């Protein structure tokens, strides 16, 4: 996965471990992880955009486009209080749901 400005705040290894425990093939794991990563992309983005004004959303996109992570963080920290915490919370909530889904499939896999 391409390193995003928020990558250090997101943890997906535990999901990979759980998928491994299900005995999935490499190809299957890659397919599922791609969905996980894209879901996290959109969840994080939704969390950030929800904190910004319309004008700031456009500026934020421009910062991402420049791919300058330092600049992006500087901008976000200026505009939103505790933005890191908000990103972490949004990602954690989703990750928890995904873990629950794996457990659910594991426990009801034969139904």
């Amino acid at each position, binding site marked *: *996965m*391409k390193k*995003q400005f928020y990558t250090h705040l997101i943890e997906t290894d535990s999901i990979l471990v759980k*998928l491994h425990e*299900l*005995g*999935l*093939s490499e190809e*299957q794991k*890659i*397919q*599922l*992880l*791609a*969905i*996980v*990563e*894209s*879901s996290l*992309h*959109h*969840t994080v*983005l*939704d969390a950030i*955009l*929800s904190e910004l004004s*319309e004008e700031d*959303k*456009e500026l934020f*996109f*421009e910062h*991402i*486009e420049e791919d300058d992570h330092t600049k992006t963080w500087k901008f976000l920290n200026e505009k939103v209080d505790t933005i890191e915490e908000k990103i972490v919370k949004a990602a954690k909530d*989703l990750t928890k*749901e*995904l873990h629950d*889904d*794996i457990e659910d*499939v*594991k426990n009801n*896999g*034969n139904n």
Partner: protein
Amino acid sequence: MLKFKKFFKKKDLHYKKLHNKWSKKHAGIKERLYSNHQKSVKWLVKNIPAKEHIAMGSLSGLLLLTPPVVASLPAQPASPSSNLLDEVKKIPSGTFFALELSPLLPDEVRPLSVDEEKKIGDVLSKHYNMKVSAELEGKKLNRSYGLIGAEQHLMRYPGDTMQSHFQTPEEEIFARSGMAPGRGAWGYFAPSFSEMTQKDVEREKYYIAVQTFLSPGFMDNVREHYAFYKYRKMLVVNPHNGRAVVVVIGDAGPAAWTGKHLGGSPEVMSHLQRVDGRARGPVLYFFIDDPKDDIPLGPIDVI
């Protein structure tokens, strides 16, 4: 050996279940993002060019609307190496149309109120880039949201048969619908084969039958209504998938007792994919204001 096979079967089942569950979740997350931040996502698409090719899905099969809400936008194949913005910009064409239309549609297929017709007409006008409305020149049908059923082909000129009806082999797939035994409400489309124009051909190909006889004021002035409805251009939209066709009113019907509110030619029904087991389903049908006759008949995509 049996145990080995069982293990493989189980892991495939796990994969399928997770893939299904997560694809739906992914679609819901994307839908929420587009819905919450429509304006800025539109700005993004317009102002920041994609670094990758943006996979814009065709309209078909992308909306999967279930009135009155967008049930789910299909999950796009996610690429782990995607640029963040490019990933967001993988918006299937018609997404915004779906998001705007779905909250306006009632749960059940019923006549729309004037206010609903106005709002839905505005959304259709905007996304199909034409002026449409439920009322035109003071005339309106008995409804603008109803169940469409399959009609047969119509005789275009005296002596037209299923053998003479199709110009290309591709069109012959529509032959199985057969031809109505009588003429349409407006008579033949052309006086003879030699006088038939391409416009006549298109009109029969993309026609609908509507319940003109149930429209308000019809019985008070049949002649005037007849003249207004004859080959009147309309936009028909399947709100479940966004597929739409520009058509003409080519016939009157179906009878009220059928439970259907309008009929579509075989070509119209095929494009709308409005052919379920009972060969009927809900569509929106609005008049097109096209005084110069500029808008061609046939399938049309959202802009």
